[in-house]
């Protein structure tokens, strides 16, 4: 129970920081909407549904990347990560609290982005929404670990996309597959498996990322 209380305290802190600073969620919202608007004009009118779904997944991925790049900004200032690492709570609680807060930001961005996609391109099926929900978990799990890794580096802005995008390829494969295939169950299962594996790996390895 104390572990969950630590996670809740850390996630609540991130949500409060965003409410005060408002520098992550508005940027994510603006980015995802701008991307959809730009592609609405870029793609020819007779473009396939497949191409439109691809645009959706690219927009989600890069919107998430924007949020991930800012994930540890508050901790970098004043070296707060040292303070959290020194606390006697399990260090994986830092990862889980941060991942949950990012998940909230991403879901909020998608609450606006998915209806906008439906308006600009084509309707969304339940399988696409399910795939987006599963992808969000994987993105936040692995992305938070990599953001924690990148924050210690001088080239953090460069390092995060270089680490994150290759690891996000299975998410795109599963997401696009679930969105366009006749039998999306297999792709949804694939996304769920990705989530489980990477959440476990990230949870277990975060301690080694934030300590020497």
């Amino acid at each position: 129970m104390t572990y969950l209380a630590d996670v809740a305290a850390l996630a609540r802190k991130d949500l409060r920081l965003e409410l005060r600073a408002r520098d992550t969620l508005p940027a994510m919202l603006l980015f995802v909407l701008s991307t959809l608007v730009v592609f609405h004009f870029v793609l020819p009118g007779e473009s396939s549904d497949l191409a439109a779904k691809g645009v959706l997944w690219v927009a989600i991925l890069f919107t998430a990347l924007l949020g991930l790049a800012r994930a540890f900004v508050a901790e970098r200032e004043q070296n707060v990560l040292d303070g959290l690492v020194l606390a006697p709570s399990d260090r994986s609680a830092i990862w889980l609290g941060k991942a949950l807060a990012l998940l909230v930001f991403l879901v909020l961005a998608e609450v606006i982005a998915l209806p906008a996609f439906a308006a600009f391109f084509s309707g969304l099926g339940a399988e696409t929404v399910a795939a987006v929900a599963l992808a969000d978990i994987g993105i936040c799990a692995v992305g938070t670990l990599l953001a924690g890794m990148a924050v210690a580096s001088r080239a953090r802005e460069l390092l995060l996309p270089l680490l994150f995008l290759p690891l996000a390829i299975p998410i795109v494969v599963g997401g696009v597959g679930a969105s366009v295939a006749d039998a999306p169950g297999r792709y949804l299962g694939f996304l769920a498996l990705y989530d489980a594996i990477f959440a476990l790996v990230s949870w277990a390895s975060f301690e080694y990322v934030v300590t020497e």
Partner: protein
Amino acid sequence: MIRARRLEKRYGDKRVLRGIDFELADDGFLVVTGPNGSGKTTLLRLCAGLAVPTGGELTVTHERAGVGFLAHESLVYRELTAVENLDLYGRLYRVRERRERIGMLLERFGLWEARHQRAGSYSRGMLQRLALCRALLHGPELLILDEPYSALDEDGAALLDRELAELRDRAAFVVTTHDPARVEPLATARLALA
């Protein structure tokens, strides 16, 4: 208790600490001095468990929950108020009667009136006072203080003198300072880094 034997720390090719030996009892007060770049902060990070030695031995018997660490930076969120910052740390350190303890520390360090202001609006001296509140919040048995007097005005420094004297019998101390005379009456051991 902290015991260092031939302690060494390198960052890549750069050797920051070399052949450091000292022993600090549970009621000891170690004063670490040395010029800028001599490795004082690195030594404190090693003692706090934020860094690992690359050579020699370092034994720290205190658990993480019993260590209070004051760094160069305040280790607090700028967008949170003093109360919110201390409440977060109080939860993570499972401080009993958290609110009372936070209120007592804020009052003692002269931050009560500014308790609902964001830390980002604090002056450097107020941030240092808040950082001291954070380091003392959980009643640590080992206090690791990196330049605790920096940025404090005369009142703040006198306040810290009183705090250290009061805590002297209840905790072990590792303190770096450029003004060793200030803590000399409390010191039981000295380490000069070159």
